């Protein structure tokens, strides 16, 4: 009985965390999957999101405005970074290096501004309910709900708006996009900004649940990349599914095995998948 | 005499789209074959299949009696097929000499002397002895194409595949390239860089009819007709194509 409750808890908890992971992954999916820019700095946008949420909450005395303000600020940071790196964004190696530079700069800035000590943001909703015999905070449910709304909005933007159409078309055939009058450089900037904003939103949402440190971005970015590649570049729903699956599998593996071994096993699984999956670029629709 | 190259029922499907369907073709030793056809007919694809860059979905491909259809790309070059692609191929960050050396050294990686001799001869053949230290990115388009030809010859191939080798090149240089092909095909078997066969794709019909012994006409992935330049002109589809491209 105890075991069943543990597994059920693990599943549900995994899904809730997986949705946050899906949100940040979808941001990378726009930047890397659709635009083809290898953005190593994506984790840092997430980290900046969490720090800014903490900072703004303390300044304003309430958490909620951060939900709108932070994605806007981080999105702007993204546009700025893309603008700087425009000359090299088509070259995979150079954009890895350039965005790694952005990572170091952002992480260093956070360290200088706010120090290395872990920050804690009090949850805006304190109430919790009982889930399989243990308490579970309402805020987590709310955070997952906001993430889902954001993911649906992203889907809407990509599939139903003119901007989304252009975003999806721009990499397929850059020449054609130019010919049809779309300002290609702007599509890249805005797309990058949109992706960064999603990472920022994800950072904001997790801020009341985690310890906020400058290193949190580096800890997550490899996982996010793996999810986007494994799910197939540019496929929003695949990445969401993979993020949740990854989170659940990791949760269960680390719960029932020695956690570090569980982590190792998860990484090996994903690595094998990464190496032996048919090339997602050619199998694109 | 046995055929140098023979293909039977060659077909290629990509994402459910048929690019080539059931192409049969033979190339006799010493023969120069031109391939013509409208855009999108599958000319370049045919050459890429012959060069090993693409793998056919159906059909078989034999070179000197050896079945090549299952072999990896690099072995085509080793077995005597060289390929000049539609876009200039020299390594842009390397010098002319390094490009030639890279192409020439493959079979004899550590016999520096023989490689060096070959590189010298190639540089002379294309009249670039003075430019060996120039980095490719600084060459003109025509020079790059000429270098492509030399690199293709470096492995001393039996068969050369050339995809529009003279397109975009000024008349003089284009003429030089065509002359070089002719010379090498007609040369004695013991001359360096002698070619046993040549298949080329070309839009310029003057070049095609001047250079080729036989011409094949591709349309919509099928080899519609093949024959001597004289005979092929009479064929309905070809005649129509030629009249539409009067001023090519």
């Amino acid at each position, binding site marked *: 009985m105890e075991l069943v409750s543990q597994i059920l808890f693990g599943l549900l908890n995994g899904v809730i965390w997986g949705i946050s992971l899906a949100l940040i992954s979808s941001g990378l999916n726009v930047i890397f999957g659709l635009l083809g820019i290898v953005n190593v700095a994506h984790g840092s946008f997430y980290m900046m999101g969490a720090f800014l949420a903490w900072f703004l909450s303390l300044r304003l005395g309430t958490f909620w405005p951060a939900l709108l303000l932070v994605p806007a600020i981080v999105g702007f940071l993204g546009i700025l970074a893309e603008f700087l790196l425009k000359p090299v964004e088509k070259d995979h190696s150079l954009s890895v290096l350039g965005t790694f530079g952005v990572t170091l700069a952002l992480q260093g800035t956070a360290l200088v501004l706010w120090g290395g000590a872990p920050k804690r943001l009090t949850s805006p909703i304190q109430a919790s309910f009982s889930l399989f015999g243990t308490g579970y905070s309402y805020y987590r449910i709310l955070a997952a709900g906001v993430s889902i709304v954001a993911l649906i909005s992203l889907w809407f933007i990509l599939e139903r708006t003119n901007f989304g159409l252009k975003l999806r078309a721009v990499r397929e055939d850059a020449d054609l996009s130019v010919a049809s009058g779309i300002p290609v450089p702007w599509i890249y900037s805005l797309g990058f900004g949109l992706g960064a904003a999603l990472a920022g939103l994800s950072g904001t949402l997790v801020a009341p649940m985690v310890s906020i440190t400058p290193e949190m971005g580096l800890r997550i970015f490899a996982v996010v990349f793996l999810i986007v590649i494994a799910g197939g570049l540019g496929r929003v729903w695949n990445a969401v599914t993979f993020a949740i699956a990854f989170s659940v599998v990791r949760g269960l593996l680390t719960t029932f095995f020695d956690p570090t071994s569980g982590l190792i096993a998860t990484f*090996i699984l994903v690595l094998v998948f990464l190496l032996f999956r048919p090339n997602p670029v050619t199998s694109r629709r | 005499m046995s055929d140098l190259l023979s293909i039977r029922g060659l077909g290629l499907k990509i994402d459910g789209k048929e690019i080539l369907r059931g192409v049969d073709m033979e190339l006799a030793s010493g023969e120069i074959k031109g391939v013509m056809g409208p855009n999108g007919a599958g000319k370049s694809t045919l050459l890429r299949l012959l060069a090993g860059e693409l793998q056919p979905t159906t059909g078989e491909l034999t070179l000197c009696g050896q079945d090549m259809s299952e072999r990896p790309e690099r072995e085509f070059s080793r077995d005597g097929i060289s390929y000049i692609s539609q876009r200039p191929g020299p390594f842009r960050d390397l010098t002319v000499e390094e490009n030639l050396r890279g192409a020439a050294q493959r079979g004899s990686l550590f016999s520096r002397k023989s490689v060096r001799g070959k590189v010298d001869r190639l540089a002379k053949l294309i009249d670039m002895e003075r430019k060996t230290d120039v980095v490719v990115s600084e060459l003109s388009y025509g020079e790059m194409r000429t270098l492509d030809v030399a690199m293709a010859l470096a492995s001393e191939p039996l068969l050369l595949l050339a995809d529009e080798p003279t397109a975009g090149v000024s008349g003089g240089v284009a003429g030089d390239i065509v002359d070089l092909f002719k010379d090498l095909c007609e040369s004695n078997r013991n001359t360096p860089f002698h070619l046993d066969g040549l298949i080329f794709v070309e839009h310029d019909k003057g070049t095609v009819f001047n250079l080729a012994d036989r011409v094949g006409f591709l349309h919509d992935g099928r080899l519609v007709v093949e024959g001597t330049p004289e005979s092929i002109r009479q064929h309905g589809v070809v005649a129509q194509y030629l009249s539409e491209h009067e001023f090519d």
Partner: protein
Amino acid sequence: MFTGSKRVLLATFAALVPITLIGVFPLFMGRFQVVLLTEIIIWGVFALSFDLIYGYTGMLSFGQSIFFGVGAYVLTYGMTWELGLLLSLVMVLLSGALLGLIIGAVAVKVRGAKFFLVTLVGAILFHLVALDNRWLTGGDDGLLVPLQFGGVVDNFYLIYGVGLFAALVTLVIVRSPVGLVFRMIKGDKKRAELLGYWTDGYRILSFAISGALAGLAGGLYGYTTGFVSADFFHWSYSADAVIWTVLGGSGTVAGPFIGAALLTFIKESLSSTWGVIYPVFVGLLLIGLVIGFPGGIVGLVKRVASWTVSGKEGSTDE
């Protein structure tokens, strides 16, 4: 080279001057400067190992720390089992090369961003495994290396000698026909394959040589500091090698050493106040290099040199 014999001579001379200067450095310097220079040479060899696969063969790997860590531990165990320094270093080279073959054979299956990711995840995995196996690695707390230490200056000349050896071997390799194939693969892998080369084989070979060099750096580092820990596997060591190489100039033998020297030196000279913003500085430097000077310092020097010397493009590899 055909006509460049004069240039080769000039380049050799240009390389001999700093090599000699470094060689006599301990005669004039304090012990700390010698220790620092020793460390810089080791980092230079480490960066060089990265340069071989990135600057020459065109593969952006974040997995160099794997070999660094393995090299350090192989040396530690070699010394613990009293095999002697020479034999231990040979073991380090062999294990690095072997591991390079294995990891290379797996990693070359993918390219571009996926290659970067596979090597990065590889490093993360090795780090986790090292942390998890304290019986072997000592985990975070690490192990002490039993030393037959002969003093700062003796150690310097040992590292200097090995570093020179590593640089020379690399120079010979990149100048050899094999090195030309590496550079062709970097330029256009498909095209090299078309010319008949088994490019994956060459990429694996490049990985193996690089693994041996990175392992050597790790071994030397462990030998110099007398301490190894699971931390050596952390990919941030790989990232350092990447940054040093890009700053110094990738695709050159001197670049990695120059980059490692400059950044180590800058970092060492920064006061505590400035030390805090060092990562920001390096981040902005990296962005600037990538968009402004992809050739790094050596590239810049070459460009300046070709302006001043009659505009003839130089391609020396020192």
